């Protein structure tokens, strides 16, 4: 998985994610995983209907950290891309809105991730 960002945040901040995919994206999912003292656990799974309408939202707890993993099935021979709006409600208003290219070289399923470390 290719990382799109590594963030250092405090517990209690909220993460919001909305997305829009082009037609070379067959389908996609965002898995939210939290890292507890016992290891990684699934926290949430956001599907396209949610991500493209209300968006996914999560308030981060005092865990070791969180992974937001975008997994997309792409059309062979296409030029798939997703436009994200990944926002962290910290003092800086941290956002990631760069278009995410999903290249053929990684297909058929391309993974991208944002990693949040809780301090």
């Amino acid at each position, binding site marked *: 998985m290719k990382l*799109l960002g590594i963030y250092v945040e405090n517990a209690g901040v909220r993460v919001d994610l909305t997305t829009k995919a082009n037609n070379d994206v067959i389908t996609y999912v965002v898995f939210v995983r939290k890292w507890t003292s016992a290891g990684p656990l699934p926290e949430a799974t956001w599907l396209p209907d949610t991500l493209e309408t209300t968006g996914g939202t999560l308030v981060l707890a005092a865990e070791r950290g969180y992974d937001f993993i975008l997994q997309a099935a792409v059309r062979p021979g296409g030029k798939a891309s997703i436009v994200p709006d990944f926002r962290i409600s910290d003092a800086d208003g941290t956002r990631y809105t760069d278009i995410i290219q999903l290249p053929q070289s990684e297909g058929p399923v391309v993974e991208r991730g944002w990693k949040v470390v809780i301090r």
Partner: protein
Amino acid sequence: MKTRLALSIFLALGPGVLPLFAADSTAPANTAVCSPDAPADDCTLGQIYNAVYEKSFPPDVVTDQDVESAVVNTNIATTTPDNFANRIHSSYQDFLNLFSFAINKVEESKDGQALIVRFNPLREGRQFLDLSVTVAKPAVSDLVSDAIPEAERAATVAKAQTGLGDFDDVTYAVAYSLAATTCSWAQPASSRCWGRNPAIYRQMLASVLVSANDLAPAADIAPDDPLINRLIELVHANDLFKQKISSINAQDRAEVVSILRQLAAKGIQGTRTRKAFFTKAGLDKLASLIDNQPQLAATGSYRDPGPFGGPDETGVSLELQYGLMNLNKLRRQCGAATDCVVRTLTGYATNGLPTDKFVLTASYKQLGEYTLDQLVIDSAPVPGFTPIHTKKSTELKARLQWGRLLSTQVAGRNARFDLSADGIQTRDDAVRTKNRWVASATLTLPLGDSISIPISLNYANRPEFLTGQTKQLGVHLGLTYRLPFENFLSPAP
């Protein structure tokens, strides 16, 4: 001038795949400038990480061939576009604005000779209705110009042309389509999802991705991995990848770059493992299953080409396409059990996806009766004009195609088998004048990327309908060679 009524019926089912927005062609992430070997000062840590990662998994970029094709196409000599559409558009802009609540788009054709007004599509459940009106620059048809004495023809046609009104050649169009708005595994097996827009299937296919992911090998970097902990110590910020390398203490830069290399290397390794898994799981077949979904497109048109434009034309056509193995069939096989879907996809990855495709096309065209006893220009009949009277005629065409890739390989590529049947029936003034039936079976043997040998068995109800044959049944053996530079010769899409 007679009242003009033009009506087109355009039925379309199953919208094609239209991108929501063009894929961005971001430059290859400063791979050279932000190389970890000597990153420029204004490179961010994210760009340095990308430069390492993208060496193994490069982004999609515009190829040289794409660029050269574009250059070739832009070098084609062009003439100044006709300003007919622009003039109509400008003249009636205020009028069109009154209907802005109902008009979706007003566009001018590329050659400037037609203005197309598209109205807002109407949607009721799975039903779509699209309306459009096309105003084309009216012209004198060959039928009329041929009836003018040759010596006077050019000048008379030019005069007749100037007497035509802006709205003499108008086509009204109606578009109807039937396409699923959503599709789900839980739908009754007997129901069909129509159309090939990926957005319809994205939500249901996401559950396949979730199920497949449960089986995928993990590729984890813990948030308190020593590499990440050290990076946090060296980079004093909350958004690590956004920081420029120049903002890092000079003595720490080499270590930061080294950590980025190691993180990217771990990412590359994880991607390799998971790519192999997802390929083996057959997830690349999802696109083919969408492309095999049933799609029905029907079109119809009525055009009145103006007083000197020849007979009115009415046309209706219908096209049905589907592939044997598609998402509807997968839904019937597996229902809501996505583990069954994952197993089936894995089977396709091992044994191949059935490639049978069917296309049924039917069209009907009618040319109305057309009478022009005299050609009157400037209130005076044109001397020597031959009166025109053409009868109503109709043409009915049908075509059925079936094709599949065979498991037999020739020169490393699958052979292909196609069957097609064509039927044309024409009637002139309600009297059938011609029936034409042609059927062919073609086996295509590939010989590399550019060469193939098609072997066809052809049948026609009359030998003259087949090229180069004197009997109703015959065999053709051919050789097809695709020129390596044919892309350059093709017009831009």
